[in-house]
């Protein structure tokens, strides 16, 4: 069975997007008329200070949150609610504890009406892709944090989305696991031909994975900035250009 597909990445067009939340009786503007084009198949990484609206932006793209103003369109179609061309990977794995690894990974497809045998066959492919073939029958509570997160990633990949939305997917992992998972994400992204939008706090992770980095401003009136990372892949964290990008990003945050 061949499950890798030709370019199925989606193109995202964000126009004049605004969102505010009422906090303590006042309207807190989180996103202020944001314009952004995400190219099909690109890896866009969103960084920004805590509270700058990274999660909010991702949730709007996912269709879990409605914008106050402006539009999001995917391949020209306006986003209203969740959609089959998008999958979300949260900071926590969010596995169903009563399903095995296989059951969890097949869950997305089954919910979409794919017959169980077919769903499980495809699930097995992606379980193997994230390196957990031997754990297909394990229960979630028997997995380490990194393994559980990989199950969550496999579940998202199994529905073969055009756009993969990830909110600090590696945020809870230890440094070693994190680095190997970053390599895995880079590999999956290039093999699966998917548009990836990833939120992270980790600048090194951003440079390692991104085609472009979007920096969300913290203070009112600041503008979002886009930085292209023009480095060949696979990338080398210790290489001088990589280090220079890192210093540049630190400077953006006023930390250098």
């Amino acid at each position, binding site marked *: 069975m061949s499950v890798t597909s030709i370019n199925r990445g989606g193109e995202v067009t964000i126009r004049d997007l605004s969102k505010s939340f009422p906090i303590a009786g006042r309207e807190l503007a989180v996103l202020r008329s944001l314009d952004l084009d995400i190219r099909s198949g690109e890896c866009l990484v969103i960084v920004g200070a805590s509270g700058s609206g990274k999660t909010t932006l991702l949730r709007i793209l*996912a269709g879990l949150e409605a914008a106050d103003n402006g539009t999001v369109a995917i391949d020209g179609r306006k986003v209203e609610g*969740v959609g089959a061309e998008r*999958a979300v990977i949260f900071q926590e794995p969010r596995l*169903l504890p*009563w399903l095995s690894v296989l059951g969890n990974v097949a869950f997305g497809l089954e*919910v979409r009406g794919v017959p169980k045998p077919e769903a499980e066959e495809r699930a097995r492919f992606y379980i193997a892709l994230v390196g957990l073939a031997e754990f297909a029958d394990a229960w979630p509570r028997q997995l380490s944090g990194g393994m559980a997160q990989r199950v969550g990633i496999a579940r998202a990949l199994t529905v073969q989305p055009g756009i993969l939305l990830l909110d600090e997917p590696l945020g809870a992992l230890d440094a070693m696991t994190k680095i190997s998972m970053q390599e895995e994400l880079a590999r999956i992204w290039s093999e699966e031909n998917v548009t990836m939008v990833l939120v992270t706090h980790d600048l090194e992770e951003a440079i390692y994975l991104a085609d472009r980095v979007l920096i969300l401003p913290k203070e009112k009136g600041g503008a979002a900035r886009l930085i292209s990372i023009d480095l060949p892949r696979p990338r080398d964290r210790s290489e001088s250009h990589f280090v220079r990008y890192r210093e540049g990003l630190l400077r953006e945050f006023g930390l250098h």
Partner: protein
Amino acid sequence: MTLQHMERPVGIGTHEGTERIGAGGLGMDFQRLTVRTTVRIISRYGVLVGFLALWQAAASSGWVNAAVLPPVDMIVAALWKGLAGGSLLGDIAISLQRAGLAFAAAVIIAIPLGLVMGQVRAVETALDPILQLFRQTSALALYPVFILLLGLGEASKVFVIFWATLFPLLLNTISGVKEVDPKLLEMARVYGARRLTVFRRVVLPGAVPSIFVGLRLGATTALLLLIASEMIGANKGIGFQVMNAQYNFQIPLMFAAIVILAALGLIANQVLVSLQRRLCRWNDPVS
């Protein structure tokens, strides 16, 4: 089962075990396993056996009044007579029928109702005040009312048990449904799950452990109310036998009936525990 028996293999096992592993230490392993099992049995049932032994000694040596606390062997004899002779079997049957009927009716009503109440805000809002009122009113206090309404026969007995069993079942089912992790619900939504699918695949399995808490509490409550109802206006049943034997000063028989009640409680609980194990293997730390 003596201390010597326990200690010897432990001592040798730790010494020689290392050398013997390569040379087929099967006998050793087996011995160690037996020792471990013995230790486990002692640590689990030691206090219970001690309690029974103390009782026996106290009653047969005259420390306590044997007419009030008869020795264990007399209770066992009365129990054996009642069971093997068949005189208590009819009581067990009628008690099981009352409690079983009431428990089954409570399950059939409380679980579906609880699932709906936990899911549909409007239903819960509407039913919660009356539920709280009923819950806070002791079922025993209502028993005279049920007797007035349903007569002193089977109906009022089954109904009072049913009534008391309903609440732990209902409340635990509701909280099981409401406490399902909203992050899991959101995950299911992201994959496009519709409401019924979310209910079937996320809410319901997530509520099962809590429903079992309700079932076990309900079983305990059912037995409790069974006894209470059989102490008033019954002429058959284990609860009746406890009262009747005490009245006729057949103290061993009274204790025999109490032992049967305890056994029924233990069996009911054990059945539910093993059912839960089977249904919730994902949750079970030993498997």
